[in-house]
Every structure is written in C-alpha cells, then in structure tokens.
C-alpha cells in the first residue's frame, strides 16, 4: 500500500489511464467543453426568442445562407433538443458522477483506486462514441434531432436518421453511467479505510453512493425503452406507434403500440435522473458548508436518511410529468401525493444546512459563496416544484416556462452552483494550485445576478401560459406583449454567458499561474485532504485509518478548530 512515485506510464497509458484521478479529470474537462457547446445553443435559443427570425450573428450567415441568416423552426427545435441533451447527458451527469465521483470516492474513503479500474476507464471512453453519435445526429442532412430531449413517440420515430443516432448516443451514455455506478457501489461498500464506517462517511460519498444506486436501478429501464424506440425506428416494430399512424413520407407506419408507454418508461429513468443530477451536489455542498462554517454538519443522520428518502421516493414520482398526458387520472393523485411529500426530505436538508450555518464562524471563500448560492436557489427551485406538484395547478403551468424556470433553478441554480463550488474547493487537490478567490467571487456575483435575471422572469412567462418549445411564440397574439420581458431575459442570459469567461480564465489561468496549494488549504477533516495535493499514484503514502466522523469541527477543548478523520486520538 503505497504512494507510488516510481509510477511512470507511457503516453498511451496516460491517455487510457486507469487511475481514477486521471479519469475524473478527463470527465471534468470533456464536460466543461460540452458545457460551452450547450451554453452557446442556449444563447441561440434566447436569440430567437428575443429577436425572432432576425439574422443569427456570425453562425447564421454561415449555416443559413439562403435565408439570409434566419434560422428555420426545425433548427430551433434542434437547438433546444440538443441544449437539453448535452446539458443533461454530457454535462451534469458526467461532471457530478463522472468527474467528482471518480476523483473523490477513492480519496475520501481512503482507497488506492476504484474497485474496477479498467471498467472505470471504459466508462469514460465509451462516452466518446456517444459524443460522436450526438454530433453526427446534429449534422445529418434533412433533419436533426428536433423531437425534444424527451423524444416522445410518435414524433420521434416518424422520420430521419438523426433519431437513430441520437438514441445510440443515449444508449452509450447509459452504458457509461452503468459501468460507473457498478464501480462506485462496489468501491464504496468494499474499499473503505479501516475505521470508516458507513455512518462516518462524508455526505459527498453518501450522495455518490445513492446516485449510483439510483442509476443502477433506473438505467436498465431507460436502456430497454431506448432499444425499443430504436427498433421502432430501424425495424418498424411499432412498440410506441399507435394504429393508423402515417409518417411524414405519407406511408402508414406498422403499428399497434401505445405512445404513453414510452413516457412511463422514459420518466421512470429520467425522473430519478433529476436526483442523479442533484444528490451528488447536495452531498458535496454539505461537506463544504460544514467546513466553511467551521462547525459540524447539523443532523448528519437525518441528512443521510433524507437523501435515502429522496432517492427512494424518487422512483415513485415520475407520473407528475404526465398529469395531463391522458394517463389514468386517479393514478395522478397518488403521484401527486408522493411528489408533494418528496418536498419533505428536501426541506429537512435545507433546514439542516441553515442550522449548520447557525452559530458558525463562516469563511467567505468563493466555494462557500457558491454553496450559499446553492441553498438560496434550491429553496426557490424547490418551492416552485411544490407548486407544480399539484395536478390542478399543473393543468395551467404544464409545458410552460414555469417548468423551464423550475428546472433551471434546480439544475443551474443548484446543481451547477454545486459544481462551481466543488471546482473551487477541490481545485487545489486536483491541480496543486489555488484558484483566484477574487475572480471566483466576482464570477459568483455576476453569475448569481444574471441567473436570477434570466430564470426568475420565466415564472411570470409560465404563469401567463407562455409555452415552451415555441420557435416564435409571438404568432400567438396574446403573447406579443411578453416580447420585452423575453428580451430582458436574453440580455441576462448573454450577461451570464459573459460571466463564464471569468470562470474559464480563472480555471485555465490558475493551472499555470495559480498560487501553489498546501495539502489541506481549507483545513478540512476528510481523507482527501490528508494526502498530498495533487495525490500521487496510489493516493496515500500510508493506508489511512479513520477514527471519527467527517464533521468534527470546533470540537470544544481542542486548540485546532478541525479534527482530521485520520488523526490518532491521544
């Protein structure tokens, strides 16, 4: 068991590395690059909503020369489909589970590496064919993926090669996630350092474990559904195509299926996927809040149980995406009850975070600010979730911008802030250098303000009944007066995008110019900080032994306000 300074892999060995830290960073970098792409797609969407059909800057002239730079409604559909696909499957899930899961799990449980390093490597490299499939889907002639990221049949199975490519990409992402989650579960259950009992695990690891379990149980359903829809497209099996359906070429599709079946299967995965995209962030910010409050995490056990409750209940709420879909209306009631009740563990977590801050000694590092931003935004996103959970209200707001506002508050305002916090927090561990705190705080302030400017007004749009996925909502006369508000939103979105330049500069610049980091710059307790920054191959020079939980901050009677998990009790 040793730190292995003599480990010198070949170039190929470095690229196809089986070291969890390298794989984690590979996930991190590819997700961040995809985030740029996804963000630009979002700007293009906002462009069209603020100045419909006006020439798109630069790329418009290039892509749509014949129309004088004006995009087509079909391309608009491709824009929002790919924005969602990329942000969900190539950014949020890989960056949380792939990047931070890989990087942190062995470090925080005191293991040398993952249980299955080769499987781990494959879980990253199988993403590349997925990238290729999605890019190919976007550029195939005739029709890109314009059916929304939910790919509801029959629309999705009607026509075009892009759907098959898109489905293949999704399938491969699923394979990657499945490999990852098997690995995470095994590693966390089997490879913890001596003394690290389950109830001494940091919340980050709990978040990763529960996410992995969610994925392991929900993904097979999505995979099956995707294979069915793929065969609908390629082999005309008609699982989801109803009788009498005519495709865009005017041919009757072989059918006999049920369109709603897809929605059930899809949301059976994709609702838990929402939690897959937030539980790791919740875990990470719990650790950071405690560290920067110099105070134990309030109510560790309720935190663990509420996370389990969210995950468990997450499996029985998917129907709330389908209140008005035509599914059994009495079934909606049971989904409504579980949906409203899932707010309870989320609320408990929020109260615990607040209590963690209470009577603390807060340190306003950039990472801490993102965590506070997370809590603040999670409250707004969570509360709008409760509003929508009522099926009666959902009749009004379903498929309007109210929904868009809600999930952006949760996914950007919360999950993405969690990611920003985690990047600022673990950057010294990952690269051995500190990120610039001032630029980080400036980035936080700007992103926070523009985030609210972008997504808060969307609640108002939604309350008016302003529908999503409309290339030109202003053809509806009563929505014409919402144009200035949309222009305001677009301006905030542009500002938010501009603010990310600060982050990119900070992230890339600190790789070279960042201050050298010490091993434990935040004076944190968890195992990851009890080794070198960055850790060498094998992570720990000596196998760590754990004597206490992860949150022993400001223990009365100690000179230091932190107490590393590995410190031998005197």
């Amino acid at each position, binding site marked *: 068991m040793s730190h292995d300074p003599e480990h010198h892999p070949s170039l190929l060995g470095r690229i196809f590395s089986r070291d969890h830290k390298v794989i984690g960073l590979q996930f991190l970098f590819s997700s961040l690059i995809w985030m740029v792409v996804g963000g630009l797609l979002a700007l293009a969407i906002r462009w069209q909503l603020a100045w419909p059909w006006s020439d798109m800057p630069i790329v418009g002239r290039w892509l749509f020369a014949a129309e004088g730079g004006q995009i087509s409604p079909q391309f608009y559909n491709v824009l929002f489909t790919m924005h969602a696909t990329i942000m969900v499957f190539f950014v949020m899930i890989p960056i949380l589970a792939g990047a931070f899961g890989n990087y942190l799990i062995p470090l925080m449980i005191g293991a040398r590496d993952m249980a299955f390093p080769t499987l781990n490597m494959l879980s990253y490299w199988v993403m590349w064919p997925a990238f290729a499939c999605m890019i190919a889907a976007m550029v195939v002639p005739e029709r890109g993926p314009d059916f929304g990221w939910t790919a509801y049949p029959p629309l999705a199975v009607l026509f075009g090669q892009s759907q098959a490519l898109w489905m293949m990409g999704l399938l491969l992402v699923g394979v990657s996630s499945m490999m990852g989650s098997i690995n995470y579960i095994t590693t966390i259950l089997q490879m913890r350092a001596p003394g690290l009992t389950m109830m001494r695990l940091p919340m980050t690891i709990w978040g990763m474990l529960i996410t992995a379990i969610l994925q392991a149980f929900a993904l097979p359903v999505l995979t099956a559904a995707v294979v069915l829809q793929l065969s609908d497209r390629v082999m005309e099996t008609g699982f989801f195509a109803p009788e009498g359906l005519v495709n865009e070429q005017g041919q009757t599709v072989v059918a006999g299926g049920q369109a*709603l079946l897809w929605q059930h299967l899809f949301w059976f995965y994709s609702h838990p996927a929402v939690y897959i995209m937030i539980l790791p962030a919740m875990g990470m910010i719990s650790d950071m809040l405690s560290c920067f409050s110099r105070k134990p995490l309030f109510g560790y056990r309720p935190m663990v149980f509420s996370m389990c409750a969210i995950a468990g209940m997450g499996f029985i709420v998917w129907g709330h995406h389908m209140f008005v879909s035509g599914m059994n209306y009495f079934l909606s009631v049971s989904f*409504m009850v579980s949906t409203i009740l899932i707010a*309870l563990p989320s609320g408990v977590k929020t109260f615990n975070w607040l209590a963690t801050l209470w009577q603390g*000694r807060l340190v306003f590092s950039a990472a801490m600010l993102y965590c506070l931003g997370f809590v603040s935004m999670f409250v707004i996103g969570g509360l709008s979730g409760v509003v929508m959970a009522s099926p009666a209200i959902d009749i009004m707001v379903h498929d309007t911008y109210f929904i868009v506002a809600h999930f952006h508050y949760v996914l950007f305002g919360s999950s993405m802030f969690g990611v920003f916090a985690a990047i600022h927090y673990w950057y010294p561990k990952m690269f051995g250098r500190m990120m610039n705190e001032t630029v980080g705080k400036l980035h936080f302030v700007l992103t926070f303000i523009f985030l609210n400017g972008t997504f808060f007004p969307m609640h108002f749009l939604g309350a008016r009944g302003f529908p999503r996925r409309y290339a030109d909502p202003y053809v509806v006369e009563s929505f014409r007066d919402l144009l200035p508000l949309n222009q305001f939103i677009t301006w905030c979105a542009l500002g938010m995008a501009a603010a990310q330049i600060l982050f990119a500069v900070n992230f890339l610049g600190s790789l070279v110019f960042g201050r050298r980091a010490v091993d434990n710059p935040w004076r944190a307790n968890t195992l990851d900080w009890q080794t070198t920054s960055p850790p060498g191959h094998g992570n720990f020079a000596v196998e760590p032994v754990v004597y206490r939980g992860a949150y022993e901050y400001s223990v009365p009677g100690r000179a230091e306000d932190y107490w590393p998990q590995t410190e031998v009790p005197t």
Partner: protein
Amino acid sequence: MNRFWGLFFLAVPLAAFGVSALAAWGWTPLAGFWLPANYSREGETIDQLFHLFHAVAAVVLLGTGLILAWSIYRFGNRDRTAAQYWPHHSVLEWVWTIIPAGILIFLALFQMESWNRSKAAHPEIEVAGQRLPQPPLVRVVAKRFGWEFHHAGPDGKLQTADDLYVENLLLLPAAEMVVLQLESSDVIHSFFVPGLRVKQDLVPGMKQKMWFEVREPVELEIICTELCGWGHYTMQAKLQAVTRAEYDRWVVEETNRRRPELAEVEQ
C-alpha cells in the same frame, strides 16, 4: 464582508417575493406578468390554489431566506469567537419534519377536489330520470399543425354526415358545461386554453374527454403545448364562446351554408 454578503443574500427572498407580489397584485410595470384573465368556472379554483401554494411558498421563502441572510450577517468572519459545536438537536429536527409534513399533506388533500372536478368527474345529464354521461358537443382532431373542430350538427350527434367541420375555430355555448372529445391524427398534441385553465394531451390512438364551462361570451386562444414538430408554434386556433341562442343559430346557418343553392322546384 459579512455585511455585504448578508445583504446580498437578503436581497434574494426580498426581491423574489417583492417582484412576485407586485406582479400578482398587478402593479403597473409588472402588470400582465401573472395569470391571464380567467373565464372558466373551474379556473377560479385553480387560480385560488395557485395563489394559496404561492402564499405558502412565500412564507417558506421569506423564512429560510431571512435565516440564511441573518446567519451570514451575524456569523460571518467572527475572528475571535469560535463556532459552536452543535451537531444535532432532536426536538428541533422533529419539529421541522412534522410541521412541514402537516402542511404538505394538507396542501395535497386540499387540492384534490379541483383535480377531480377537472379531469375525473365526467359531467352528467339527466335523461328520463337516469343520470347519463353528458355526450360530447365537439370532436377535436389535432393534426400537424392545426385543429379540426367537428361540431355536432343539428342531430346533436358526432360523426354523422351533418357534422359541422371548421378548421381552427371552435365555437362553444357559454355559461354551460361542454364536453369535448379529443383525438389526434398523427403525433401527440396538447389542447391548452390559458384563459380557461384547461389542458389535455391528445394522444394518437386514444380518445380523451375534456369538459369545462366558459362563464361568459368571450374570444380566446387555443394553443398546442406538446411538441409536435417544426410547426408546433403555428398550431393555434380561436375559441369563441357565444350565448346558447347564438350557438344554435350558428349551427343552423352553417348547416345551410353547407348546402348548395338549390334549383327552383320544377314540377
């Protein structure tokens, strides 16, 4: 910096609450940023629920937001004071589990009735002393990218030769419960009238029923809210609610218009 960050985070609940409250109240610069005018009977309840849920949300938002801001303001960068070692508190934890649970269960039960009326309790009429489901007045067929409305003709039945087919115009009698039969001829669409708080997906292969009561004669917009292809945004229609007398007159007029001019009786 604790003051700055405290105020910074204080601004979130205050601004969010303030802006929403002003919008809901209809303060001029924010007028039109809330629910549109409602013209249906059930819509009133839905609006009330919308406001109730938002009121509860506002209390939670302000409460948690103020605690967050205060914690930041009060406990930020205290150089001399150590943080308090306070890992848990069972009573407090039970309190903030049980009270929200009670509120949530209340909300869940409270709004069930409205959903039941909107989607589950099919309106009935009394025929010869028997309560029968009210027959649909109009057959709505959604297609890419438009709406076909097949109004029941003078015989009052759907899918007969005297059906009055109109493209993108739905005429309905106001001040009475109407039942629509929804079908889709290709992909999934969704029938949404913001002014009536009604929405229902139209799934190919399924026949849905929808019912509502327009309170007064009014002209509203019907839009599609389930992605149906490139022309999704163009898929809109007009809903015109008229008095029953006008509606009956319209049925007669339309039926006559659908006949050619007939030759004079020759015999």
